[in-house]
């Protein structure tokens, strides 16, 4: 530890914009950041911004960014006291905090056992119930048979979803509209789950109609302090992938907002959480609220919470990992204005969102009041085929939502990326979409719109 009580050197176990985000937080705190990179990322921007950089393997992430031992070896070799995982890659893999602990290196995030507990759907659901957080009505744990499935479904009401206990990321889910279809669906889903995941176990959840995705940011230090930093609405999705997020959630009932925020803090406290985390909920049109899961890491869309709260979430992560107490109390958290994020992905919206890696030949980022860009690229950068398609996060802030939307239109008009195809044009068109402008988007609305009028 340095005089400030902070770790002195941090290995940033990630790439792209989030690696740079962590490097910047380190700089602000006087911490020395060290980058890692694969063979494909030797010329990447995050490498040049760090104090030191260590090559950890071939281009494919399974041979570099996804190897806990390679990360811990790199941390040891550069004298890092802590490892920041970013998001994606190993950020929710308990093997990394375990390997760090064995090596005597601090992991910036929750302990391995807490990470494993919140990552297990059945355990997380039990923890939510224990904390008094509403969950999606359904079977508590696995259903034992088709007859059992019928009993549960009659109790909670159709439509229901059969979900593979070992599934994830939207895979292994089957919607059942009526009791007539349940037997067939049960048999097929169990067989598919056994084939895909080696585990035919299923559970049942009620299918909410046209819900919004609302999530709450929490921070928990190692001294028992837990606070929330308000919510984000991430309902603009395609195939469960978020495209646009905003804070606060537009038009959300005040009582529901309080219920979600309190629930997220209670859940975090109940599982012994440490670090920055996000509790995700579905909210349907009748105001029913259901906990989905907790993400035990910093999220892509954390920046919009930073814009409306003024709190540097990544800096808080580093403070918490250094065993310092939170900088702020719950009563210090004030929400100011509205912030919206647009994920600029290297994908072609006119061609079924086909990935579009390649060299960026012209790159002009917008600026001006209320505009923040987090990106790992610049003019001449190559967007690699090996990694995810996120090229830049455009975040806008306004004193109110209409101003944020106006600034978003201005910023998207200025933003220019040539050489690859991106979602920039789609975002600009979505800013003329009544449902978005009015804050009425549910998680299926974008897919309905794309079907009705292709991008």
């Amino acid at each position, binding site marked *: 530890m340095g005089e400030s009580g902070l770790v002195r050197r941090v290995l940033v176990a990630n790439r792209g914009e989030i690696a740079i985000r962590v490097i910047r937080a380190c700089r602000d705190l006087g911490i020395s950041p060290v980058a890692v990179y694969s063979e494909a990322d030797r010329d990447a921007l995050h490498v040049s911004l760090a104090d030191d950089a260590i090559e950890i393997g071939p281009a494919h992430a399974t041979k570099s960014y996804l190897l806990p031992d390679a990360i811990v070896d790199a941390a040891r070799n550069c004298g890092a006291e802590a490892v920041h995982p970013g998001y994606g890659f190993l950020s929710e893999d308990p093997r990394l905090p375990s390997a760090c602990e064995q090596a005597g290196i601090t992991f910036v995030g929750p302990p391995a056992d807490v990470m494993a507990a919140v990552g297990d759907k059945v355990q997380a659901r039990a923890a939510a119930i224990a904390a008094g957080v509403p969950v999606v009505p359904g079977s508590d744990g696995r259903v034992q048979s088709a007859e059992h499935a019928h009993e549960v479904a009659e109790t909670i009401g159709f439509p229901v979803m059969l979900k593979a206990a070992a599934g994830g990321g939207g895979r292994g889910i089957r919607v059942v509209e009526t009791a007539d279809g349940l037997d067939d669906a049960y048999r097929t889903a169990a067989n598919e789950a056994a084939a895909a995941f080696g585990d035919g176990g299923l559970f049942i959840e009620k299918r909410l109609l046209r819900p919004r995705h609302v999530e709450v940011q929490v921070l928990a230090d190692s001294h028992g302090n837990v606070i929330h930093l308000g919510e984000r609405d991430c309902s603009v999705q395609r195939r469960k992938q978020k495209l646009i997020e905003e804070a606060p959630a537009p038009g959300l009932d005040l009582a529901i907002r309080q219920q979600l925020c309190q629930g997220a803090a209670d859940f975090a406290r109940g599982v012994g959480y440490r670090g920055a985390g996000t509790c995700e909920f579905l909210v349907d049109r009748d105001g029913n609220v259901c906990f989905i899961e907790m993400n035990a890491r910093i999220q892509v869309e954390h920046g919009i919470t930073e814009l409306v709260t003024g709190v540097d979430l990544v800096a808080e992560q580093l403070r918490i990992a250094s065993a310092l107490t939170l900088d702020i109390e719950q009563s210090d958290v004030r929400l100011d204005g509205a912030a919206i994020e647009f994920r600029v992905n290297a994908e072609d919206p006119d061609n079924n969102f086909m990935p579009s890696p390649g060299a960026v030949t012209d790159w002009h980022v917008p600026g001006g009041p209320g505009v923040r860009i987090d990106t790992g690229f610049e003019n001449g950068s190559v967007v690699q085929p090996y990694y*995810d398609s996120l090229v830049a996060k455009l975040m806008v802030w306004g004193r109110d939502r209409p101003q944020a939307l106006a600034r978003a239109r201005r910023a998207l008009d200025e933003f220019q990326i040539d050489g690859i195809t991106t979602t920039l044009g789609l975002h600009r068109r979505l800013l003329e979409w009544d449902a978005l402008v009015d804050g009425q988007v549910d998680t299926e609305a974008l897919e309905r719109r794309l079907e009705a009028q292709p991008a």
Partner: protein
Amino acid sequence: MADEDVIRSQLPGIFYRRPDPDSDPFAEVGDEIQAGSVVGLVEVMKQFHEVTADSAGTIASFEVDNEQVVSPGDVVARLESTG
């Protein structure tokens, strides 16, 4: 060589001969395949896309190794036309 005698990748990415590491290859040299048959996958930005044959034939050779990087239009396999 005319285009019906080759199978190209439409996308840039990493070419795989197998659906997953524990499975058999989609196709081997000498296999007879139909138009639309899958001969490999290309992984690009965490998505997998099938590489398919445009016409029937017998696979004469693979021009790209498993896990090798391909560019759009790269020939991944050559066919001997049947008939």
